[in-house]
């Protein structure tokens, strides 16, 4: 078995990152100019990394699938970004943010990585403010904070309900500055088809221009993968339509191990599904749980009447409501972590207490908060979210409670990386949601923005130098090398194969079928039998896809159907790996809930003796089973406990 080396620096937890930086290798300014770095994806992690590399003097080539880096899906994050500033004087510290994140992740992440994340969190806020990000402020002119799930302090910085937008626009402005300077060359509407390895190192990519269809070769001394998560494998998710896992999947097939692929975050507060034609789900920010109270009817007959439209929620008195999160988790109440809140909602709905016409929804009620604070305060805090809800559902949430239900939101799993964020392919790094690193089995709210920017602004600019320091003698890589020719040929042949099937069913119809399999068997609750069935069903669906899919048009044109087909072909393989990973992990932890492993109260039951490891999967070929390698998780500094939010 391959020995996975996480390369965790020596020393006490609080000194590891400082020690690393003190002893790492650096590249001098003259040499930086001669070194090329490719950055794939220009969301928070990619844009911040590309801009920072450019500032340092490296020659950067950045790639994004959108018409502009400003459209990456980081833009849609609503609620906020965590940092251990302790501005509210409520007892926060770097250690507490670290501890909450490890605990929130149900003890399935690396201590050293998470500590570093908490440590640089404060630098991120400073950086963003310096860029002109208009965070919310108090009347005294200083920054305001609010609370998110899994924390008892207020450490979340925010910009109305558009924090992701403002942070991405900050990173985009830094990137634009470097593009103008000429240190970054930006390739928009450009999709990665494959990676090119030369002598075992990542040395380039093959891309497709999404307008002309032209296949291009690009080379570099190092490559950074920052393409986000793969939640769209479920078809319906809060991800944007073009968000995809293909670059990560191609990296996996070229030798990068895939870490904990089954760890998926199902977000508790999304607008419920309404019809078969639905293309995506909309998130309602977790920040709403600061003031909204979650409930379902206490009695089944009331739930049934509500489902049939015979009773309105506002007609139900307090004695006929069940505020189930406050009842089950008095200490954290409505602010329990996402996995706990989602499962509790599913439990109530499965038991027949759900609301809405489908019975698959719970209420998020602001009546108390409006009474306590006044409508204007709620409007100031969440106005844009309330408006968004009203446009979609056609109901006024100031007057009647919102209906919400869990939906796929984020993937904690991703490409395995060591402490330096380097994958098992030398020279290939992974950042942001695309890597598996910091959130364990469950990510806390407002931590994705933190991790993306931490990786891009404050980690990679250091660690990539440690790699590049011994590459200074390597001349610019030629794209005429046979490895590039071979990769281009393979990428083109995959496209030709898809176009040649010429079956009868659309790409979306296969994607929808895959999504149903994933949601039913690899979703919020999993069991052995279901996962085995999912593997079989996905294999059959994949075979059917390659016989019956219809991809119109040609490669040499704007062809969104072809783009989708390439992604869905990858999802049909990735979905199977997710099911395999979930099947292997005979325990429940965080968002991974195996029905066979639960406490008498229905909480996730970990098995630390056996499963205290990261599962890193290695690709073994098209028809071969993947191999699983273990990176043991060693907890030196904290005590591993059963999570308790009561």
């Amino acid at each position, binding site marked *: 078995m391959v020995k996975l080396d996480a390369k965790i620096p020596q020393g006490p937890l609080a000194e590891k990152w400082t020690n690393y930086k003190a002893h790492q290798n650096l590249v001098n300014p003259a040499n930086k100019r001669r070194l090329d770095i490719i950055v794939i994806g220009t969301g928070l992690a990619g844009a*911040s990394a590309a801009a920072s590399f450019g*500032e340092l003097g490296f020659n950067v080539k950045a790639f994004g699938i959108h*018409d*502009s*880096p*400003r*459209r*990456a*899906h980081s833009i*849609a994050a609503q609620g906020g970004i965590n940092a251990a*500033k302790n*501005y509210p004087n409520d007892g926060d510290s770097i250690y507490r943010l670290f501890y909450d994140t490890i605990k929130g992740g149900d003890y399935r992440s690396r201590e050293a990585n998470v500590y570093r994340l908490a440590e640089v969190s404060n*630098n991120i806020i*400073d*950086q*963003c*403010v*310096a*860029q*002109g*990000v*208009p*965070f*919310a*402020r108090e*009347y005294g*002119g*200083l*920054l305001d904070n609010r609370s998110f799930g899994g924390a008892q302090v207020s450490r979340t910085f925010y*910009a*109305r309900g558009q924090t*992701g937008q*403002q942070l991405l626009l900050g990173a985009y*402005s*830094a990137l*634009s*500055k470097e593009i*103008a300077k000429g240190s970054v060359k930006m390739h*928009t509407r450009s999709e990665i088809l494959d990676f090119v390895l030369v002598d075992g190192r990542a040395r380039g990519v093959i891309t497709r221009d999404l*307008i002309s269809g032209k296949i291009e070769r690009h080379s570099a001394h190092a490559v950074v993968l920052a393409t986000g998560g793969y939640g769209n494998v479920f078809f319906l998710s809060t991800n*944007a*339509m073009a968000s995809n896992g293909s670059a990560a999947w191609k990296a996996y097939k070229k030798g990068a191990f895939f870490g904990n692929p089954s760890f998926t975050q199902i977000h508790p507060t999304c607008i419920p599904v309404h*019809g078969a*034609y*639905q*293309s*995506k789900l*909309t*998130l309602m920010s977790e920040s709403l749980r600061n003031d909204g109270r979650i409930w379902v009817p206490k009695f089944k007959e009331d739930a049934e009447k509500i489902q049939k439209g015979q009773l309105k929620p506002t007609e139900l008195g307090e004695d006929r409501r069940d505020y189930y999160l406050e009842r089950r988790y008095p200490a954290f109440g409505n602010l329990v972590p996402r996995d706990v809140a989602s499962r509790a909602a599913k439990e109530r709905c499965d038991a027949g207490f759900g609301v809405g016409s489908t019975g698959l929804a719970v209420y998020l009620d602001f009546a108390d908060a409006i009474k306590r604070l006044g409508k204007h305060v709620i409007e100031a805090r969440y106005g844009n979210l309330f408006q*968004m809800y009203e*446009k*979609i559902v*056609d109901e006024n949430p100031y007057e009647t409670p919102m209906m919400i239900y869990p939906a796929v939101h984020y993937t904690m799993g991703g490409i395995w990386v060591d402490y330096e964020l380097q994958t098992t392919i030398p020279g290939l790094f992974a950042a942001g949601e695309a890597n598996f690193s910091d959130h364990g089995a469950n990510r806390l709210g407002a931590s994705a923005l933190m991790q993306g920017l931490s990786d891009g*602004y*404050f980690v990679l600019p250091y660690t990539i130098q440690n790699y590049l320091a011994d590459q200074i003698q390597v001349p610019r890589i030629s794209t005429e090398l046979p490895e590039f020719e071979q990769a281009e040929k393979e990428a083109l042949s995959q496209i030709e194969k898809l176009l040649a099937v010429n079956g009868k069913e*659309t790409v*979306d*119809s296969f994607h929808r079928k895959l999504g149903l399999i994933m949601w039913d068997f690899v979703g919020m609750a999993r069991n052995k039998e279901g996962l085995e069935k999912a593997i079989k069903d996905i294999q059959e669906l994949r075979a059917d896809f390659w016989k019956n899919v219809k991809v*119109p048009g040609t490669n040499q044109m*704007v062809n969104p159907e072809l783009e989708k087909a390439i992604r869905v072909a990858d999802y049909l393989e990735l979905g199977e790996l997710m099911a395999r990973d979930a099947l292997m992990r005979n325990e429940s932890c965080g968002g991974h809930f195996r029905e066979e492993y639960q406490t008498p109260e229905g909480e996730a039951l970990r098995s630390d003796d056996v499963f205290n490891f990261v599962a890193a999967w290695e690709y073994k070929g098209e028809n071969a089973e993947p191999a699983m390698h273990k990176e043991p998780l060693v907890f030196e500094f904290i005590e591993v406990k059963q999570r308790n939010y009561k």
Partner: protein
Amino acid sequence: MDLTLKIWRQASAEGKGKFVNYQVQNISADASFLEMLDILNERLVVEGEDPVAFDHDCREGICGACSIYINGRPHGPDRGITTCQMHMRNFKDGETIVIEPWRAKPFPVIKDLMVDRSAFDAIIQAGGYVSVSTGGVPDANAIPIPKRKADEAMDAAACIGCGACVAACKNASAMLFVSAKVSQFALLPQGRLEARERVQKMVAKMDELGFGNCTNTYACEAECPKEISVSHIARMNREFLGAKLLSEK
């Protein structure tokens, strides 16, 4: 509901476009406008026809990708939302809906309803940033900013760069887009240091790229999905004038 769609089809940037009529049946009033187009496209694929190309991504009104002219208005009949947030309940059964791409010279059509908005990126690259590098910045609370100013900067920063303002303007002026960025930074102490150079460079780039002048019709504000106020244009004009008057060169 059953609808007639009159859609602008154009094979490529060079191609000559034309309107083509399509019928769609049994569309739910709860479907979004883009889901209605998905339904049409799925049918076109099965029938072996070229589906209608349009830009879209987040489908929750924040990425700014969607850019469709509906019945003569950018982002359609409802106010304060993007195309992707528009639901079919805004239309009547049996209605004919006219669907076009943004119409503005600086935004050339790529295909069907897709346009090239890279001119906006070029304007930001001309100066839409604060020139700080990563690291070495002061503590976030070392720069107190009056809440009123921070809130106003946020109002401006809410721009999603969709280009509806340009599409709505008879002059294809980008003043609302440019002023939103200029105004955001002009209001904040972090942005003040470079304010004079910024406004001149961004305005020069905007002119160079062929955007028209502002003649105060306020169509941009009326059609902006984020309801960004024309008061930012007024601030930009003051900034621009001030910069010209005080120019050291």
